[in-house]
């Protein structure tokens, strides 16, 4: 086994375990912390794929900005444990488990019968595909229109947030 595959297995194991802990922990802050751990594992996985830029952006944007805001809000509201909300086995849970099991079998079936064949060309583009220079060049040449549309979308979201927060018209 190469170093990369060892890293891949360790990182994915931690990522799956932390993702499970996010939904099973009672305390919201602890859940948020496991989500941060999960983001770090994802960043590590990106690094093993030579996508350094995406790895760092994953940490800056998700772990460093969005999760800080999440933790901030949870702390500000001082949310306690969710123990009071817990309920016993209800019909909702049974249906949810059934649907999840159906989805899992479908996924396994699709992957096993290789319904979707991944294009082989994605691997052969060399190791510089994840660098900042390459991504910047692609964004401002081949993908300029989607890039600009995304920024307009973000601008609309910012204006909307300010309008909602201001309350005086």
């Amino acid at each position, binding site marked *: 086994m190469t170093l990369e595959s060892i890293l891949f297995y360790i990182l994915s194991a931690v990522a799956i375990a932390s993702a499970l802990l996010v939904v099973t922990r009672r305390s919201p802050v602890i859940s948020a912390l496991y989500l941060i751990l999960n983001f770090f594992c994802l960043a590590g996985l990106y690094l093993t794929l030579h996508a350094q830029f995406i790895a760092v952006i994953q940490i800056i944007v998700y772990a460093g900005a969005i999760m800080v805001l999440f933790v*901030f809000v949870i*702390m500000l509201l001082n949310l306690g444990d969710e123990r009071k909300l817990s309920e016993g086995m209800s019909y909702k849970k049974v249906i949810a488990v059934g649907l999840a099991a159906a989805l899992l079998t479908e996924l396994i079936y699709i992957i096993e019968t290789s319904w979707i064949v991944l294009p082989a060309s994605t691997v052969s583009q060399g190791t510089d595909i994840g660098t900042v220079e390459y991504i910047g060049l692609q964004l401002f040449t081949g993908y300029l229109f989607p890039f600009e549309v995304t920024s307009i979308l973000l601008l609309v979201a910012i204006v909307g947030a300010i309008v909602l927060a201001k309350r005086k018209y």
Partner: protein
Amino acid sequence: MDLIEAFFKIVIVIGALITGAAVMVFLERKISAYIQNRIGPNRVGPRGWLQPIVDVVKLVMKEDIVPKSANRFIHDLAPILSISIALCTFAVIPFGNTIELFGRTVKLMIADVNIGMLYILALTSVGVYGITLAGWSSNSKYSLLGGLRSSAQLISYELSMGLSIIGVIMVAGTLRLDQVVVHQTRYLWGWLPAWNIFLQPVGFITFMVASFAETNRLPFDLPEAEPELVGGYHTEYSGMKFGLFFLSEYANMITSSALITTLFLGGWSIPFAENLALSPLTMSLLQVGSFVVKVFVVLMFYIVVRWTIPRFRYDQLMNLGWKVMLPLAIANILLTGGLLLALN
């Protein structure tokens, strides 16, 4: 062999950071004493120079008190997070050019990665968790307020910090910190060193202010503000766990001074030293010395500012961050872009 080399560099850098932090604590107390017309620590060792060692011994011997209703695990985790992130940031900062030792050319930085600046931004953005978690896990109102303030403050100033770095990136055309330093060894009009402080004066000011805010130093020390919050986020900490917060504050100060030096003050470069025809080894050592001197000057500035300027009020802090620093940083990017376009 590379591993051994990396190991030695890590040991040296961490040792230098921790020793530097101890020296800084002593100098801070001494300089503050002179500014306030006192004498300062002068009992332990010659002129009080052994005071930091006594302080550390005291902290280690003290009892570790954890509040009854605190979350034990996170209460322990928070100082560890703080200090490890503070120490990790230094990994990509070049503290010298190359040096010839035992027939090997050693590059004087721990990790030579091509996204050095983004690495630093990523670490400073997660650096807030140490303080925030310390505030939350203590289960005390003062700590919680300190933690909340710190996360709001860091989110606000991270933006102008990142945006002021972009100006430097545009001028140097790279994200590698060693290349940024090499870029600053040139001269403008043949006599002025092309340091980014001359090329990016606005970026320098916004970065400086943002790094004061990121290290929680006065006038931005609202997360710990003694008069209102007892001790802020570390109110409920004692013994060496408190000591780790203290240490990481000073380690952060050293790292951000090193960053200011690297990005804006020419890093390890010595202007006009190439005309002196020194041997390569002397030159390398002098360059390391030049880096240390520059970092020291910035650190002295940190200390003098702390004991000169009063703390901001919370709304002033937010106004400065969002309404002054952020527009300034954006204007700087536009101006830099325009100038680069006009000159090329």
